[in-house]
């Protein structure tokens, strides 16, 4: 079924009886050309682009829960392309371009809103660094502008510009950045993949990966064994357990990151604001809630909930940035399981096992990467070659020293 404004109106007039399910609920077949482990944003996008760009439709996405039940439904929905180092910058640039055409592409309203994102700076050194970053982004063909304090005051009058600890010196604005409806991204890709013949199999947990003589043969699942010549591990925070089924150790440690949302308010902020010194970022959802988050809790965890010290830290950071937030009531908070790599950058690569691929290590930045991650992973699985914009996301880069350390803080598990 094709969605359109006209369809919404006609269905509204006739009791909404004509809507059908957005995707099928097939039973798993005995064999596929390719299997994707993980029905989250990255897995579903990979399935979609395998079918759309490479004509590979005899594939299955295996999801242990329901589609989109992991980090795609637990993030702060920010979409941006303000990366600096080669290897990252072209990848996120590609992703943002895919975002801009995503709703037309999928015929699905993902509520992508290019409301802009500003990264604040608080010292002369930070200003220099942001100007350098902005120049690099502009030279690449993307957009960035440096805003003075006066310009910021006009647009964001509610920030505390003269706070004693981190007075605001200015900010780097990317107008094409913004937010999107996170679940809808998973649903849109799921529907698009299903329409092209991909089997989306829910409640199907992979319990083993069959490897013979260094070649992948298929997987064992709670719904029986399934054979395939190509298997992709796209399991985000659970990547370590999935890789262990293939006898692999990978450079990933899973950490919690917490996020928060307030009760719905009238429109108060129309852009995303990032306050790096407080490890704090905030935007307002279309429903009115202020959505904000902080840094990871900084210890390995799968609990999907954090501890109170970080809650306190995030609230304090919010108060120092925009004191008016103290009037809002927090509606809920939650934690996601972040697949942290030592250098803070992701992995899209083959593994030493033939036919087995991995897409993991998205740290706390996986949401904006979903379209390009799917695009590049599909390219890798279909052609056997890394896509040009993802060629540095190597699994072995920590051993070889080809790090992608965007923050410039080093390559150790507790640094990002």
């Amino acid at each position, binding site marked *: 079924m094709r969605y359109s404004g006209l369809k919404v109106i006609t269905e509204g007039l006739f009791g909404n009886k004509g809507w059908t399910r957005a995707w099928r609920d097939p039973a798993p077949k005995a064999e596929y050309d390719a299997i994707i482990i993980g029905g989250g944003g990255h897995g579903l996008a990979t399935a979609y682009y395998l079918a759309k760009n490479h004509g590979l439709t005899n594939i299955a996405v295996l999801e242990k829960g329901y589609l989109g039940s992991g980090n795609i439904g637990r993030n702060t929905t920010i979409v941006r392309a303000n990366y600096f180092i080669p290897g990252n910058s072209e990848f996120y640039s590609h992703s943002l371009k895919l975002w801009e055409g995503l709703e037309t592409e999928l015929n699905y309203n993902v509520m992508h809103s290019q409301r802009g994102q500003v990264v604040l700076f608080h010292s002369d050194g930070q200003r220099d660094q942001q100007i350098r970053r902005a120049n690099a982004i502009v030279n690449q063909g993307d957009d960035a502008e440096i805003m003075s304090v006066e310009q910021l005051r006009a647009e964001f009058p509610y920030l505390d510009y003269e706070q004693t600890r981190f007075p605001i010196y200015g900010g780097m604005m990317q107008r094409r950045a913004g937010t999107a409806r996170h679940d809808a991204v998973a649903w849109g890709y799921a529907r698009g993949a299903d329409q092209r013949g991909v089997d989306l199999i829910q409640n199907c947990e992979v319990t083993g990966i069959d490897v013979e003589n260094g070649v992948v043969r298929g997987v064992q699942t709670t719904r029986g064994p399934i054979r395939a010549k190509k298997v992709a591990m796209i399991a985000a925070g659970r*990547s*370590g357990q999935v890789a262990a089924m293939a006898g692999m150790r990978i450079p990933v440690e899973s950490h919690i990151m917490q996020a928060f949302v307030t009760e719905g308010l009238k429109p108060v902020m129309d852009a995303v604001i990032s306050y790096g010194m407080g490890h704090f970022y905030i935007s307002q959802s279309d429903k009115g809630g202020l959505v904000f988050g902080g840094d990871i809790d900084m210890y*390995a965890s799968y*609990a999907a909930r954090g*501890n109170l010290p970080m809650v306190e830290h995030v609230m304090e950071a919010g108060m120092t940035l925009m004191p008016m937030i103290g009037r809002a009531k927090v509606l809920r908070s939650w934690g996601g399981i972040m697949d942290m790599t030592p250098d803070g950058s992701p992995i899209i690569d083959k593994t030493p096992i033939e036919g087995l691929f991995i897409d993991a290590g998205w740290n706390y930045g996986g949401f904006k990467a979903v379209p390009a991650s799917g695009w590049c992973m599909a390219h890798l699985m279909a052609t056997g070659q890394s896509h040009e914009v993802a060629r540095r996301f190597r699994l072995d880069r920590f051993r070889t020293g080809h790090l992608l350390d965007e923050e410039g803080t080093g390559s150790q598990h507790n640094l990002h």
Partner: protein
Amino acid sequence: MRLTCPLCGPRDRREFYYSGSEDYLNRPTPDARPEAWDDMLHLRDNPAGVTKDLWYHETGCGSWLLVTRSTTTHEILATERVADRKGAGA
């Protein structure tokens, strides 16, 4: 979350700095191959369940602790000083 320091008793998580997995205790010999260093520094079992990791009692006694805990419930199962372990270096 509270960790029990063998010297200081039960203390708030904020007194401790998290270093990472116990892999850091298995330092390769200087002539080891790069793969051994990659194993220690980067590759992880990353278990969902009981894990052992290193915490530094930064605002307490300054001990390095080996903490046995659950990554799924945040329960602390045991703590010991790295220095008290058999065969620990000076």
